């Protein structure tokens, strides 16, 4: 039988009305929380029991519409899916409610999600194909083909990953993890014909996957286990598999690892910069290189052609052999 338990907590909620407030502020609410309550219940109680002007988005209450996402003590959550006691266990008895993005706040928890929708729409998040309007039979997909896109298809566009992504915050061009997951989901669909177009779009520097910082914030933030960063890796791989990847600093940096590992087992730190940037691009790194030389982090011989200053792993021949037999992609 379900046992009812209670805990007294303090909620500090971000309050802001873009029309009337010059600055945002936090308002404190005390309440006793039952162990079955969700974060969404607490949002409702602030509005119903404390302040009717408190604003947030909500709709389905079943983890599928993606409207009610907020941040609790910095953790992006889907309010209707997250048990309040779990959050109290994680953060203690003071919970802090913030909108997904403070700088996009319109009213309290409500943000302007326009940037998210624009970027999501830009990657063509739908199957693009010449389809017979009167088909004789359904388009069949194998279990493997479905498995390949299934977790990406769970995305409910809640925006948690997008607003957890540090690159989205800095680089306005960047598509962001949700758009990338959608780009992967439809490009890997066997019915779709716009795969190359999406790969080209997401391969571009600045807006594309090469600007991903690998922080895994998106994987952590997703309430539906879409694992966007894994889809980003798959888009990287697809660029090489489908020969969309063009030689540039980022693609050479990825591929250059093979060359180092084949020769030394270790990554050659000087060579990877040289190989990625080219000799002309090295001027950018001169100042840093001099400092590193002075500190003994690098040596004058590093990266100089025909001088092999690199340590080698034991049994390097095994690695050479494995690279030869297991490598599937080329730049």
């Amino acid at each position, binding site marked *: 039988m379900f046992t009812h338990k209670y805990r007294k907590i303090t909620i500090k909620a971000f309050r802001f009305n873009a029309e009337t407030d010059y600055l945002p502020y936090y308002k404190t609410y005390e309440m006793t929380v039952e162990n079955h309550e969700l974060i969404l219940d607490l949002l409702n109680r602030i509005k119903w029991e404390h302040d009717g002007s408190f604003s947030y988005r909500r709709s389905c209450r079943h983890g599928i519409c993606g409207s009610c996402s907020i941040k609790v*003590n*910095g*953790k992006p959550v889907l309010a209707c899916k997250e048990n309040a006691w779990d959050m109290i266990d994680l*953060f203690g008895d003071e919970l802090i409610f913030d909108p997904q993005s403070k700088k996009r706040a319109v009213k309290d928890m409500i943000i302007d999600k326009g940037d998210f929708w624009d970027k999501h729409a830009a990657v063509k998040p739908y199957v693009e194909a010449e389809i017979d309007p009167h088909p004789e039979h359904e388009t069949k997909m194998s279990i493997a083909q479905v498995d390949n896109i299934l977790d990406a298809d769970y995305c409910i566009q809640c925006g948690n990953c997008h607003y957890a992504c*540090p690159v989205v915050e*800095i*680089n306005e061009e960047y598509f962001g993890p949700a758009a990338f997951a959608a780009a992967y989901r439809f490009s890997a669909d066997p019915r779709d014909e716009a795969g190359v177009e999406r790969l080209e779009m997401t391969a571009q*520097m600045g807006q594309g996957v*090469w*600007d*991903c*910082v*690998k*922080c*895994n*914030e998106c*994987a*952590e933030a997703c309430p539906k286990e879409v*694992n966007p960063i894994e889809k980003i*890796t*798959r888009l*990287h*791989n697809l660029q*090489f598999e489908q020969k969309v990847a063009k030689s*540039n*600093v*980022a*693609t050479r*940096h*990825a*591929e250059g*690892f*093979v060359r180092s*590992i084949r020769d030394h*087992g*270790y990554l050659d*730190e000087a060579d990877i910069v040289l190989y990625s*940037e080219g000799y002309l691009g090295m001027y950018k790194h001169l*100042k840093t290189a001099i*400092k*590193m030389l*002075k*500190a*003994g*982090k*690098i040596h004058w011989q590093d990266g100089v052609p025909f001088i092999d200053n690199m340590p080698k*792993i*034991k*049994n390097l021949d*095994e*690695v050479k*052999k*494995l*690279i030869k*037999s*297991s*490598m*599937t*992609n080329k*730049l």
Partner: protein
Amino acid sequence: MSQLHYALFTGCTAKQSTPELLSSTLAVADKLGIKITILEEASCCGASHLQDFDQFLAHVLNARNICYAEKLGLTMITICNTCQLNSAMTKHALDSDPELKARVNEKLAEVGLEYKGTSEIKHFLYTLIDDYGLDNIKNKVTVPLSHLNIAPFYGCHNIRPSELHGSSNGNENPYNPRSLDDLIDALEGHPIDYDRKNKCCGFHVELQANHTSEVLAGNALLDAIDNNADIMVTPCPLCHLKMDTYQDSISSTMGRDVELPVLHMPQMVALALGCSEKEIGLNYHVTKADIVR
């Protein structure tokens, strides 16, 4: 307590640009009586970039590294967050997908190896805390760090994705990590609280998205400085390289002077245990760290 014994996967930076990381790790292990066998056969983990180029090849090479720890019957420890993540990702992928494991093992058989999945993979930070114990470390402190306000900088790849790391990082909460703070406490330093301690340093896009990289590192360093940090400490040599080496260019990007010594986690422990200057290797820092003395 029976003697702890680990297989150390050094990673590439500890063998090149951050020799102080390796020497201080070995010095700490020596002081604490932890036995270390270095996996000299282990190759680069791919650092997520090889994975971007060829995921399967990355799995094969990481599985090969793990094989050598398995052969010794030891837990594989890492001293780099990115080595930790990429090794753990391969382990997870192979342990949960028999078909992939078979494909990888088919390749490994060509060099007489087999991946079994018998070795755990754990970052040195968590072996110190979970296996050796903070109280035991506290008892060994000879040079308390009570003169230092220390900003713990966790680095992404030890704490995210939490689902992957949960069993090897003591279920660290990625939104409120404690391990480094607790370690600083045990060494009698003062851990400072700041928002960006669990954020990204930007290292991985240093070449292709330099502005993003500089702003991320700058935000973290300035947040630590604004909260009165004397030094920053990190368990990841890639975070260390970004934060220690680029403070001049970060200063011009951020429009503010950024100067904060950044220590590797084992260097901080080595300091408190009274290891030698040579072992701690502060001379290898670009941003000088004399303040710790």
